């Protein structure tokens, strides 16, 4: 079959005289779409996204008002109950939440007198309920993840840790942003 130059076919088959007349003598309305560049772009997208692919997915979502510190020598995150401690700010006293439920205010914890009782009652009680539930489902391990903003003082953090330990969650995992490849330099001997 001979190869023909592409031409306007709409006028040929449907005999639209006015359209034929309009197309005669004018430049073709067709434009070649260069797919090579588009395929290259899509391939680079796929390669980039393959590098960020993770089979485990996002195990934990970071609250928007919490900026976590960076660390190099870290371990991979596991699923556990999450205690978030957000910093007090101009419009908010900062909250301590357990799996999304508010249990205390960070500003109140920072104001507590030194030497007083460190127990956060609502946090301890809620964790005890979770512990009992986890024991029924045999998923209790005593681990809890603390997701804390970098500007929060140790005064508030120690109360959170103490309350968690009282409820039976003595194994604290501090959530951090992984810096580098996680292995870091080997300890020098």
């Amino acid at each position, binding site marked *: 079959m001979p190869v023909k130059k592409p031409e306007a076919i709409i006028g040929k088959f449907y005999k639209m005289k006015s359209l034929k007349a309009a197309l005669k003598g004018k430049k073709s309305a067709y434009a070649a779409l260069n797919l090579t560049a588009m*395929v290259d772009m899509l391939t680079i997208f796929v390669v980039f996204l393959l590098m960020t692919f993770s089979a485990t997915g996002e195990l934990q979502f970071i609250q928007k008002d919490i900026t976590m510190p960076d660390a190099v*020598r*870290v371990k991979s995150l596991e699923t556990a109950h999450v205690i978030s401690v957000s910093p007090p700010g101009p419009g908010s006293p900062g909250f301590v939440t357990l799996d999304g439920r508010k249990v205390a205010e960070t500003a109140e914890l920072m104001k507590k007198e030194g030497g007083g009782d460190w127990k956060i009652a609502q946090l301890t009680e809620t964790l005890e309920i979770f512990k009992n539930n986890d024991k029924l489902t045999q998923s209790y391990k005593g681990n809890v993840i603390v997701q804390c903003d970098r500007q929060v003082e140790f005064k508030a953090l*120690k109360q959170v840790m103490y309350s968690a330990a009282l409820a039976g969650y003595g194994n604290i995992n*501090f959530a951090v942003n992984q810096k580098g490849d996680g292995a870091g330099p080997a*300890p020098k001997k």
Partner: protein
Amino acid sequence: MGGGAAPTSGKGSKKPLDADLNLVPFIDLLCCCIAFLLITAVWTQMARIDVSQKGKAENAKEEQEPKEEPKKLIVVLTKDGYILTDGGEKVEIPMKGKHYDLLGLGEKLRRLRASTPDMATKTDISVASEDGVKYDDIIHTMDACIQEGFKDIALSDSAAAGI
């Protein structure tokens, strides 16, 4: 784009060797891959640092079961810098400007490791902090300790650590 069939002269029975490569299904495949990978992409690499507690709760348990403990290595974070002690001599590592001297702490820990055979195999360390110290500095301190081989970290209050 793609490939084109070579024009045939009409003579002979030779079929053209060139074949059209249809890019449209390939583009569809790439679009599906991109959609799937966008959904499963993890943008923030989160990790954890394990600590055990050595504070009020743990001390209460120890009072019931007193036992002889080996020498403990303690790093105390104060507002002026670090105090490193192994139960005997205290070494102060002052701050560098407004920041804690992490390199200095690392160097001191390395020297301690090299000092005695016991220290060379030691992996536990206690990090104690004063109330006003920021969480960021505590994490960096723990990271520096892990980097020097002390991977069993206990975190406590400076008063509870006895400093």
